[in-house]
């Protein structure tokens, strides 16, 4: 953990909406200054509510929350001043030009005019939206709007940048481009990054540490590599005859204690290169198996193992 004044601290966070829905239950984590931290989970896991609390648009039922060294309950305006956010949906004045949207942000965040002008020029170039910046936002493509929103979020040089599913709904090419841009901006400005996503690749690519959320709780938190290492080096995936497959592997002395099942497919994590032996045993058997494959583990496997459900679902 680095300098706390630029980071995020969440302790015992709970949120219960009117009507009794418990969106968050005893969520705790710390993000160090300059660290990139991901909240990973399926829809309804509580990621966006967490971001809402951190950006002061959701009032917590319980908990202590600090952003950039400021208590979000007692120093909400200060906490917002040191934060930037890219929302899940497009949040732009479509009748105004891209430049007008950026200028509005600069003034609300009280940037000196000269600094704002220079920063807008710099960011429009970095984000590749120089050609469209003076056009009304309603004429922008989805990718251009996202670039503009990212430029806006980092315009005032925030200590903490929140990205709430920043690439959802975008095509893979644009998604990869945005990942590069976000990575470059972070490397240049050194800001703390808190990202929510259900794209595993996005989390692995952008985040140094990840918290996996499920039904309002943090169920695992570590670096992507450490989370993946819990499942060993390779995964055996077998479609068909799942109970017989488990029994056969057990009979051959292959450890199947971590096996998990989705529908007719079972997934078996392997350590120590047992995968090849398992594949040979299954191919030699006469079990009614539709397909066998061996692959490297992913964060989805981690999530499946922890909850029995898929992140992608």
């Amino acid at each position, binding site marked *: 953990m680095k300098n706390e004044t630029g980071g995020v601290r969440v302790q015992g966070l709970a949120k219960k909406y009117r009507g009794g829905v418990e969106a968050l239950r005893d969520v705790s984590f710390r993000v160090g200054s300059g660290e990139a931290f991901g909240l990973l989970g399926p829809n309804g896991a509580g990621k966006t509510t967490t971001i809402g609390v951190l950006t002061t648009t959701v009032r917590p039922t319980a908990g202590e929350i600090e952003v950039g060294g400021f208590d979000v309950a007692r120093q909400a305006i200060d906490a917002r001043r040191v*934060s930037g956010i890219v*929302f899940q949906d497009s949040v732009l*004045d479509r009748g105004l030009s891209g430049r007008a949207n950026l200028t509005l942000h600069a003034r609300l965040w009280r940037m000196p005019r000269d600094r704002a002008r220079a920063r807008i020029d710099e960011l429009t170039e970095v984000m590749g939206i120089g050609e469209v910046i003076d056009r009304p936002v309603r004429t922008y493509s989805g990718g251009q709007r996202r670039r503009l929103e990212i430029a806006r979020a980092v315009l005032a040089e925030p200590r903490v940048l929140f990205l709430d599913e920043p690439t959802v709904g975008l095509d893979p090419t644009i998604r990869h481009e945005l990942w590069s841009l976000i990575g470059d901006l972070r490397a240049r400005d050194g800001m703390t990054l808190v990202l929510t996503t259900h794209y595993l690749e996005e989390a692995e690519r952008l985040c140094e540490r990840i918290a996996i959320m499920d039904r309002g709780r943090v169920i695992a938190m570590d670096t992507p590599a450490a989370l993946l290492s819990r499942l060993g080096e390779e995964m055996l995936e077998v479609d068909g005859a799942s109970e017989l497959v488990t029994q056969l592997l057990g009979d051959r002395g292959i450890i199947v204690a971590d096996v998990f099942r989705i529908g007719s497919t079972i997934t078996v994590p392997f350590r120590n290169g047992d995968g090849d032996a398992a594949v040979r045993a299954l191919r030699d058997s006469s079990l009614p198996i539709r397909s066998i494959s061996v692959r490297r583990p992913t964060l989805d496997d981690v999530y499946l193992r922890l909850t029995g459900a898929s992140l992608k679902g």
Partner: protein
Amino acid sequence: MQLLTLYRRRLRLLAGNPRELIVPLATPVLFAIVIGPALKKALGSFNPHVDYLTFVSIATVVLLVPLNAMFSGLSVFADREHGALRELLAAPLPRWFPPLANVMATLTITTLQVTVLIVAAVARGATYHATASGVLWFVGAVALLTMIYASLAEVMAYRLTSEQEYIGNVPAIAIVPWFFAGSLFPISVLPKGLAIFSKILPGTHALALMRHGLTGGSTDGLKAIWGAHAGAADAAASFGIVAVFTVGLLLMSARAFRRSAVA
């Protein structure tokens, strides 16, 4: 500075949507230049002391203000659905700034529209006798009434979930009170119960003040509210009532915004 930035933003967005500027103006201008003269022609002989054109043209301000405010309130829906409202919620500014900036922008648009309306009425033959203090009464009443309806529009827009629901409420809120405010006839001719109801409405007090201001200190409207001894004190009392409504609704709009902003 931040408040001014929000105010300018709202004006730019309103200016980019001419429908919201022109439609509210259409009905009052029609009243001022067509219906007012027609009433003068048709009814003027019944009461030669009343110039119906002038009488109705001032009343149309009390129709214009709510209509304009309610149309401006529609922009809250646009802001919420397709605009930068959430960006404003994440900005480092007090939560009462955005609704106040919206009210200020509505006040500016209303000022321009009332000017157009008055010019149109004068061109059609309305005669006003206004002293400096009379203009102040008029301007003060228009400003407070605008803030009342702009705040009310904000409250409704933050609380209601759909534009359809909002638009469905516009006639009841913007038009019906106009008929009870003494717009087309003095409230003294209303049945007693309705006359009492009309005295509760801020539009009734605002209209009496506007007529007091633009017709050379005429106290007919104030007399109908306060009784035969109407004078400066009664004008101040009506102004006070409108001011109380204004402060109350401004506070309500700030509260409605905060409640809609924070889950």
